[in-house]
């Protein structure tokens, strides 16, 4: 399948979903004016991808969001729900939740997501400022 690539803007993150390398990355800030419109192609790609995914395939997911608004937070939950379900089905999916060193809120969000999911591997990765 085609890779999904969406360029970063001031309000929306860069999306690089590579179906051959099995690497999915969301990087940047997320506060689009209409969250569901922005993320619709992301979810439709993900659902296609998961459906065609071989069992036991390892998938790496990197989430590196400097800032996300409250409606993006709901999107992340829906996104991880889909991944967790796939992990329950036997896919080996690991999420790296990458947060800035001094960002307590992002760390807390990561910890809470980690608690919520059993099948999905959820790693909290601290990033030093550049």
């Amino acid at each position, binding site marked *: 399948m085609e890779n999904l690539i969406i360029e970063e803007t*001031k*309000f929306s993150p860069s999306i690089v979903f590579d179906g051959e390398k099995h690497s999915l990355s969301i990087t940047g800030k997320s*506060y689009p*004016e*209409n*969250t569901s419109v922005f993320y619709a192609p992301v979810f439709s790609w993900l659902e296609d991808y998961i459906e065609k995914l071989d069992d036991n395939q390892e998938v790496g997911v990197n989430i590196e969001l*400097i*800032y996300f*608004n*409250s*409606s993006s*937070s*709901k*999107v992340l*939950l829906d996104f991880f729900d889909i991944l967790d379900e796939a992990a329950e089905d036997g896919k080996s999916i690991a999420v790296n939740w990458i947060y*800035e*060193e*001094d*960002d*307590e*809120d*992002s760390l807390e969000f990561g910890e*809470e997501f980690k608690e*919520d999911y059993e099948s999905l591997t959820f790693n909290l990765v601290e990033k030093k*400022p550049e």
Partner: protein
Amino acid sequence: MLTDLYKFKQDLNRQGIFFCFSGPISQNLVSEIGSILEQKMGLEKASRSTVLRVFSMVVEKAQNIIHYSAEKYIDKKTDRDEIELRLGIIAVGYENNHYFVLCGNKIHNKKAGKLKKKLALLQSMNKEELKKYYREQRKKEPDKESKGAGLGFIDMAKKANKPIEFDFKKIDDEMSFFSMKTVI
């Protein structure tokens, strides 16, 4: 009028407000406001968490105005293509060693009751209750009237350092003015 403007600035200074915008708000404007605040707080050596929290309150409040303010300009270009600009006030200040963010916009009286109830509930909750409530609500489908996830106010209350403050001032039979303050 010109002397009023100076008085207006003095009023803002007295309240500790260093940024104030009143008028139609767009998504682009939100991003510019965010970046100028980031620069300003960077100069003041505010912590990264603080900068991100102020940014987050400004975004949530401005997007509430963009989506819900009852005061708006409508430009009907064609039957299908409608451009809408909604108006409100956003202000940011510093007092007692804390940043604060203010917002205000018109709201229809018939919608004020429900919002007042929602905010009073958030005001009464402590940090742990707010965290729990946020996670519960995030799992639910948002209200039909919501244009987002319906989590903005809870998110602000959770990130704030003190309980949120709000006010509804009746303008006439149709409208009230809603204002809110969050301290970071």
